[in-house]
């Protein structure tokens, strides 16, 4: 089938809602690329573990006794039982509840009950260690895995996004999770979320009119540095960072050239050029890790204007559902009060009860619902926005930077990489019939 047109600006609706395409994605997208599995601070000390589904596979992420982050399938190599039944905990060993096989948190099979009675003399325990992905690597606290033995090194895969991620993730120290993630089953395809976060500045004025009208975002009233900002001249940039990774950076046009990092203590300022005067930065690390940072001007009470950082995964469930997993991040050096404020504005704006997501969900769910019919699925989704926008060659940021605040250039990059992977190794209709 034709998934994306030659200009890269139209994507077949079947690419989202046809379960056969979803099944292919499991193999060709999630089986091939690097996937976000956990944040290092979720497994801070040896023995800490979390369990979750990553790209359709149930895994245990743990820190072994030597301090290494390890990832295993949460399935006993003997007969497939769930090894670890909790979301979170601490243990040096995992014991299967079926026949009692016991594994060290390095993945090595240690104990087999009645080994000499049940199994022959040549039974070799080393053949039954926990299954690990061939690649595990960490970037700025983010633990990634890949099931593809031929995957490129993580930094190569992240390409130009590394520079932006460093600005997002290192804020005068490390970010850490505020606790376990919030989770919600959302009736939409996982790509809809990635598509929204990867750079859709266009939907803000309509979908989030209520949030903007209430003064939570885009205003000059709350922060001294914004008092003389020119609100008609928001400085928006869309960035293609390689391999399907994209982001959108929107900054206020301030009255002076003095750096201003809104809602964040000066000692943690990163990348002044990128982040000064930031209104919002959001993007998507291909395929399904989204990130967002913004300053909330009004959280509805006396909380001062405060910046927040959040990452979220659109975990694929089937063509019509994904699980949204949301981590609130805070700098590890924040005082209790700073932490409370940052966490508070984060969940009040962006999350399961957040002012923004509550309105986004309505769109995302309606996309699944209104594309069930045969006729509805015949057409395309249209991503022609910004085809006329020019590259910004004056800017010193890495990647392809577009002089555009509202554009669909980032989605075109998302689906370019998606289609490239979906079509790699696929036989043409002529080949199939031959």
């Amino acid at each position, binding site marked *: 089938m034709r998934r994306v047109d030659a200009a890269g600006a139209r994507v077949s609706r079947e690419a989202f809602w046809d379960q056969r395409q979803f099944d292919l994605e499991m193999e060709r997208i999630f089986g091939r690329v690097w996937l976000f599995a956990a944040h290092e601070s979720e497994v801070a000390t040896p023995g800490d573990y979390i369990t979750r589904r990553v790209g359709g596979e149930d895994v245990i992420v743990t820190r072994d006794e030597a301090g290494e982050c390890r990832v295993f399938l949460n399935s006993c190599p003997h007969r497939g039982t769930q090894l670890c039944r*909790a979301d979170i905990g601490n243990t040096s060993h995992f014991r299967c509840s079926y026949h009692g096989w016991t594994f060290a948190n390095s993945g090595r099979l240690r104990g087999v009950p009645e080994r000499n009675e049940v199994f022959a003399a040549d039974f070799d325990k080393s053949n039954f260690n926990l299954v690990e992905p061939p690649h595990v690597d960490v970037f700025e606290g983010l633990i990634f895995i890949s099931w593809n033995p031929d995957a490129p090194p993580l930094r190569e895969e992240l390409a130009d996004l590394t520079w932006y991620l460093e600005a997002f993730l290192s804020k005068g120290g490390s970010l850490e999770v505020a*606790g376990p993630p*919030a989770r*919600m089953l959302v009736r939409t395809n996982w790509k809809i979320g990635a598509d929204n976060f990867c750079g859709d500045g266009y939907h803000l004025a309509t979908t989030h009119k209520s949030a903007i009208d209430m003064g939570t975002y885009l205003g000059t009233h709350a922060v001294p540095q914004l008092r003389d900002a020119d609100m008609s001249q928001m400085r928006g940039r869309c960035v293609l960072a390689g391999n399907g990774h994209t982001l959108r950076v929107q900054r206020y046009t301030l009255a002076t050239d003095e750096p201003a990092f809104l809602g964040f203590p000066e000692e943690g300022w990163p990348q002044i050029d990128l982040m000064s005067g930031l209104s919002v930065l959001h993007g998507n690390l291909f395929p399904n890790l989204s990130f967002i940072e913004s300053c909330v001007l009004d959280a509805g009470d006396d909380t001062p204007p405060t910046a927040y950082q959040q990452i979220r995964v659109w975990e694929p469930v089937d063509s019509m559902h994904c699980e949204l997993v949301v981590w609130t991040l805070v700098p590890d050096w924040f005082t209790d009060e700073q932490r409370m404020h940052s966490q*508070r504005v984060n969940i009040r704006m962006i999350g399961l009860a957040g*002012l923004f997501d509550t*309105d986004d969900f309505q769109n995302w769910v309606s996309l699944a619902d209104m594309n069930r019919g045969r006729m509805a699925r015949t057409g395309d989704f249209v991503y022609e926005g910004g085809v006329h926008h020019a590259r910004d060659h004056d800017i010193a940021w890495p990647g392809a930077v577009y002089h555009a605040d509202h554009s669909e250039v980032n989605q075109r990059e998302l689906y370019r990489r998606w289609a490239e992977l979906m079509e790699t190794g696929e036989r043409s209709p002529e080949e199939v019939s031959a």
Partner: protein
Amino acid sequence: MDTAAVGAGPVPGLGPAADDATTRSVERFLYNEALILDRHAYSDWIPLLEDDFVYEVPVTITRDNPALPSHSETAFLVEENRDSLASLWARRLEPEHIEFAWGENPLLRVRHFVTNVTAFETAKPDEVDVRANVLLTVVRQSDPVVMTPAARADRLRRRGDGWGLVKRTVYLDEAVVTLPHLRLII
């Protein structure tokens, strides 16, 4: 009434059970509140809140240690107070904002089934702790009903006309939320 008289042992972290008249009056307050919440009538609900009211829903987690609570102490799905609820929740449903409150219009049909209400005395003579179960049912448009069971831990303060809410913590049973959204008072 003494807790032993109704066959219930002391509940860890809670004071002795309140007397029947107090419990009855708390129940009446919660049923009245449920009527208001089922109508989305924030303008009637906000006055039930004390100035220091806090509403929290912690993240539900499955732990490996039965001695530990199955809700996070540091991560929340919802964290609001009287001011933020009045200005960013209630205001959304007012005529000048409802048209663009896409997620809340059409209004979800919600019902609060509040049961197992038990009131406990606290160190403050004018305040009680209340434990209750809530079954929240939600219907969006023509979707099937979504049912979300939860435990409520409330702190109530006596007022001339009855009670005011000081704190509400809602403990969801489900670790993965299935509601259309969580911008709801449970």
